[in-house]
């Protein structure tokens, strides 16, 4: 069963161009305009990061930018809300460990 909806009684299929991006270095397919979070879930990926204190797995929760559960490292930048970030060709997405390192910091 694909995680993408292909037939729906109300919604029309309106996906953008098919594009590629990487997750943990492996190439995956997504669609222009969808969120990074949606592209990952469509590819069967549920664990987006591990929590700073107890290293617990974390995934998407609210999907509208409220809760910070979906923070990941995107193109080298940590703490990116993947539910609010639209996927772009060639994006490099990585799981975030802990609080993430700020670019140029330690």
């Amino acid at each position: 069963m694909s995680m993408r909806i292909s037939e729906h009684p109300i919604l029309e299929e309106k996906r953008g161009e098919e594009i590629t991006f990487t997750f943990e270095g492996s190439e995956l397919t997504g669609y222009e305009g969808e969120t990074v979070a949606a592209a990952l879930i469509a590819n069967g990926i549920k664990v987006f990061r591990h929590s700073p204190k107890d290293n617990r797995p974390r995934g998407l929760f609210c999907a509208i930018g409220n809760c910070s559960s979906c923070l990941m490292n995107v193109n080298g930048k940590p703490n990116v809300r993947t539910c609010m970030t639209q996927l772009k060709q060639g994006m490099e997405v990585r799981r975030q460990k802990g609080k993430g390192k700020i670019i140029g910091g330690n």
Partner: protein
Amino acid sequence: MLTTEIAVIGGGPAGMNSSLAAAEQGAEVTLLDRNWELGGQLVKQTHKFFGSENQYAGERGIDIAKILAEKVQTNNRISVRNNSDVLGIYHDGVLTFKQGDKYKKLSSRQTIVATGAAEKFLPFINNDLPGVYGAGAVQTLMNQQGVLPGKRVLIIGGGNIGLIVAYQLLQAGVSVEAIIEALPQVGGYQVHKEKIERMGVPILTSHTIKKAYGEESVEGAIIGKINPSWEIIEGTERDLEVDVICLAVGLSPLVDLLYPLGVELTYVPNLGGFVPKRNEYLETTISGYFVAGDCSGVEEASSAMMEGKIAGLSAANGISYSKKFKEKVKESKEELKKLRAGEVAREVRAGLKEVSISK
């Protein structure tokens, strides 16, 4: 620093209608929204709305979002800033926001806060596992992004949101294993409940979740029947094999920007939590700061639209754009009264009594 006459925070039904009402009175409006497109949570509502033609009854939320966004974007008195998270509001009418990667300031004469609400959470073992989603997230994934959250879903909460999301999951071809509700009866409309039951989904009242389990994400849930003291009755525990647990246990108003400003808030469970006190024109305890929609008390998008109108008209009136002000406000208030009539809005009406002030 950027300047505007009226700043509106939030581009959902309340914020869009506030902007339109104020602009129609002649005011210059800046609408800030954190998403890349306007619409707020309407963009995932595939069901048809109730109410009257003033709230686009009979239309689906997704279509109402398009109609309102089009009106806002083509109004030359409204300037829209997408991808803009408002970070703080200050007493002197200045607010700060982050648009993309840029930190900016906006000075305004009046401010309308229409930030909406956030999903409530529920305590149970392993509730932080990936695969535990808010009901809104399930809708966003399915109805906006066209992606299924999983294959087998347990829904917690038998209010209208839980019932509607169950129906939408079934529409998308996902199996709903059960809807559980801690109360002895479901809170949602009977018509929704019966539709779900006819489609073969068990609705288990007086039931709660004990724990989720799974290595890296949800693989199942243990549920059980509860006694009147809300304790799980021995021998009633059941193991459901699900990969998604969908929480539909209500919403809390997003008052994070109002609290540090010093607006007086009060705790009203019937409205979802801490809400701002306000007068009949939706002005808070700080002059020049207005509220509309779910951030002032969780209701429906229809009432958010009407509140938006009132707040927009009132904010414009405060800076002398007063064309037919009283008449227009009266009209919107009457619409609101109709929406809040009836048994289902009894709690809302009781809640509103606790937050209304005269000023």
